[in-house]
């Protein structure tokens, strides 16, 4: 493999005629770039600065003095792969009941196990806590960094729920929301109590004050009572109140209401309801999907599905229902058999056609699975999955699932320069990841200028 190399070392900017504004500029010129956001760019130029993509386009003129990385003709650049559902480098131990407060981030351990992911083009990972039932919340990491903090991109990215068609499993979800309700009820009562106490105080103090003031207070109280039960609202109210308090009477500042703090378990479900946390529900059969809907009932929160594809998966029964809901479906790139037959089914493709958003993950967390990830996706693309959908399913969709879609997942101006350099079409057998760039730096492989 020959590299057409131009360009200078990192010190180059200083030596150039046109001084570059912020030092770290780099232009990448490649025959083909899969942008995800805007389709395939031929003869693409990607301008990277300070770890971000500044601009990307076809045949863009490059200012003199900017170091240019000219890639071989066969090469392809695409955004770094995102595996939103993994336990890479973690043990399989976990709880078997409802522990929504558990964080996968606590198990995080920087180590060599992440190299397999990195070498195969993975730049972002979503790591979930192990166990059955409701094992806890996932963390988004990058496969580089010597400490937990360096690795971590975001915590509390999704709550993992495993649903099975049993009474106890369904009850876990219902109970979770019940806990949240219980807390809200407790909070409400606590607040009422505080308000009453406050009122008494005022009455005592205000024996001499005018009637006008009293009316004002009543108004204020009414406002408070209207307040929603949600915690966020409460906080706002609290702020309002504080202001009013400041204006009206400075003496009462220290008697400010302190809301109760929910425990981690209740908090997770409160977050679900407030939609600051999403759920990833793991199911493996069509029946479990129906039971999931039954267990959720009227609760409204954001949730996506993880469907483990077994050889004889019968999940196709509900593909239209899932598709119509437009949810994300996390699946492995694998062909299954229609139950009781040897007829192949391409369930990822069927889901995509039905309208679901597909997230593709490696078949397992072994290094071989990471090595054959792109090839496996290529197989189901060959078997009928839309190519663009497949590319999205490896990048933007999982990034969105992790709530990091603004930073990763596509080649667009303003996003992180997480790029992978392939020596051919990503889905062709034999294509290899030659280099991986995270945040503008080559973390794996060398591409010489």
């Amino acid at each position, binding site marked *: 493999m020959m590299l057409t190399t131009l360009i200078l070392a990192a010190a180059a900017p200083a030596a150039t005629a046109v001084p570059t504004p912020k030092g770290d500029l780099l232009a990448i010129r490649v025959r083909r770039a899969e942008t995800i956001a805007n389709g395939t760019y031929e003869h693409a130029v990607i301008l990277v600065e300070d770890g971000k993509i500044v601009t990307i386009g076809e045949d863009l003129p490059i200012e003199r003095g900017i170091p240019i990385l000219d890639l071989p003709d066969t090469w392809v650049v695409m955004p770094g792969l995102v595996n939103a559902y993994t336990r890479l480098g973690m043990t399989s131990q976990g709880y078997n009941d409802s522990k929504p407060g558990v964080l996968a981030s606590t198990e995080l351990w920087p180590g060599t196990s992440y190299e397999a992911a990195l070498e195969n083009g993975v730049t972002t990972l979503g790591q979930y806590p192990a166990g059955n039932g409701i094992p806890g919340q996932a963390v988004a990491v990058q496969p580089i960094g010597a400490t937990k903090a360096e690795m971590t991109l975001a915590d509390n990215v999704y709550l993992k729920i495993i649903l099975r*068609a049993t*009474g106890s499993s*369904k009850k876990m979800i219902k109970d979770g929301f019940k806990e949240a309700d219980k807390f809200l009820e407790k909070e409400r009562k606590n607040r009422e109590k505080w308000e009453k106490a406050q009122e008494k105080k005022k009455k005592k103090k205000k024996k001499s004050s005018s009637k006008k003031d009293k009316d004002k207070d009543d108004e204020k109280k009414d406002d408070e009572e209207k307040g929603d039960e949600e915690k966020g609202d409460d906080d706002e109210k609290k702020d309002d109140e504080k202001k009013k308090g400041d204006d009206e009477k400075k003496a009462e500042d220290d008697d400010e209401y302190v809301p109760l703090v929910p425990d981690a378990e209740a908090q997770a479900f409160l977050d679900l309801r407030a939609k600051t946390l999403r759920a990833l529900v793991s199911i493996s059969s069509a*029946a479990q999907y129906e*039971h999931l*809907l*039954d267990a959720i009932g009227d609760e409204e929160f954001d949730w996506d599905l993880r469907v483990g594809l077994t050889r004889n998966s*019968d999940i196709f029964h509900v593909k239209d229902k899932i598709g119509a809901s437009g949810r994300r479906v996390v699946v492995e790139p694998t062909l299954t058999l229609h139950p009781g037959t040897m007829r192949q089914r391409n369930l990822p493709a069927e889901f995509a056609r039905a309208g679901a958003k597909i997230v593709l993950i490696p078949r397992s967390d072994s290094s071989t699975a990471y090595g054959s990830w792109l090839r496996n996706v290529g197989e189901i693309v060959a078997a009928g999955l839309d190519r663009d959908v497949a590319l999205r399913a490896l990048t933007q969709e999982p990034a969105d699932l992790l709530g990091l879609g603004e930073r990763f997942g596509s080649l667009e101006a303003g996003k992180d320069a997480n790029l992978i350099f392939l020596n051919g079409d990503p889905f062709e057998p034999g294509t290899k990841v030659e280099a991986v760039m995270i945040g503008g730096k080559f973390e794996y492989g060398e591409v010489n200028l």
Partner: protein
Amino acid sequence: MRDLRVNKTGLAAVFAMLVMAPSFGAIRFADDEDDKDKQAEGGKEGEEDEDADEWFALLNAEVHTGTGSILRGASILAKNGRIEEIGYDLHVPDDAEVLDAGGMRAYPGLVAISSSGLFGGTSDLENTVDPYGRSMVLALASGITTAVQGNQAGKLKRGEVTDVVASSEVFVSLTYSKGDPRGKRTLREKFDAAAEYIRAYRQWEKDVKKDKELKAPKKPSDSATLKVLRGEVRAKFRANERTDLLEIARLATRYGFRPVIEGCAEGWTVADELGRAGAYAIVTPRSRRTKDEKLTHDAGSSIENAAILHRAGVQVAIVPGTTRIDLGGIVGRDIIHLPIEAGFAVRGGLPESAAFAAITIVPARMMGLSHRIGTLEVGKDCDLIVADGDVLHYQTFVQWAVVDGKIVYDKADELFFAHIRPRPESALAPETKVDAGETAVEEPAEAAGDPDDSED
């Protein structure tokens, strides 16, 4: 016959059944907490208000209502899963799901009074049912739309997990056998206690009007027998031997309840006694039981068992020898051959109507669900099957199954039997007006539905 409309009369019949079925030999209390019937009805009505109505229409069928009438070329209209109208020239709303039966026969869905594995779940039906399971498809293919699993009755609602359970307590299982004299005595004592409590309670009900302080009598420790005597649930005994059957009949007569006797192989020898005791029998016509040759009286099994019991006034339900789906051994003896087992009772002399009732309305009555399932009547659940011939005939296939007004099985869509005698085109497509002349139009064969049916 042709212009018979069943809506009004049907409704009346349902009401009659509602009133009669529970009151037979039953003592109802004012404080009865769970009036299942009322609850079920209330729930359904609430739903109607919320959403737009869901309509289903079965057109052009030979409707065997299960109540004795056969309506040729009739239609059935269902609203929100319940039968709204049966008759001719019905107005079908535009948004109705329409199924053209192509002149084939429509029957009420079959009821399996005993089964296992059809729902794919555990005893906690509601939370474990697999509404996409293979067993459920096979059961529907055999015509079963309601089945008892464990002690729960469930509907084979494909693709749905809500409202699956039709009855959460079908029977109270009791043992009363000469092999266990002590057990017999204990059971009698329990019944005595329950009967005494009921008497005391009635007295208290009267007295408490005068003296408000009066305390209600204490409930007996055994709630099962109390439920039986109150008529809330039927008692089921498993017995085959003549002596045991007689004993059960005596016990039932003494305490005034109607026993369900499963097995009942030697029932034909004591049919009169069982009939007088108002017994229900769950029989397997093909089961064999040898006679002890030392005995001088009749004993052992008889192919005529069901017929003789029926003649003596015993309500007979039929189950096959194996109550699960059996993929080993000789074909045709497991639960998906329920109608064939009933056919064997016909061979033994049971009238066809009674044999059909034995897999529909009789088991429904046993469970106290005759107000919802078992026959095609206005007001009942729209659970029906469309078959290409006499349902008891071995050659007949169920073409469609409908549960709660939704098509849950279509023979042509499932891999199991679609290729065997594929459904004739004419049955699929309703008669359409085609321009005459140009193309030779194939006659929409009248007899396409049931070419092999000799019974018509």
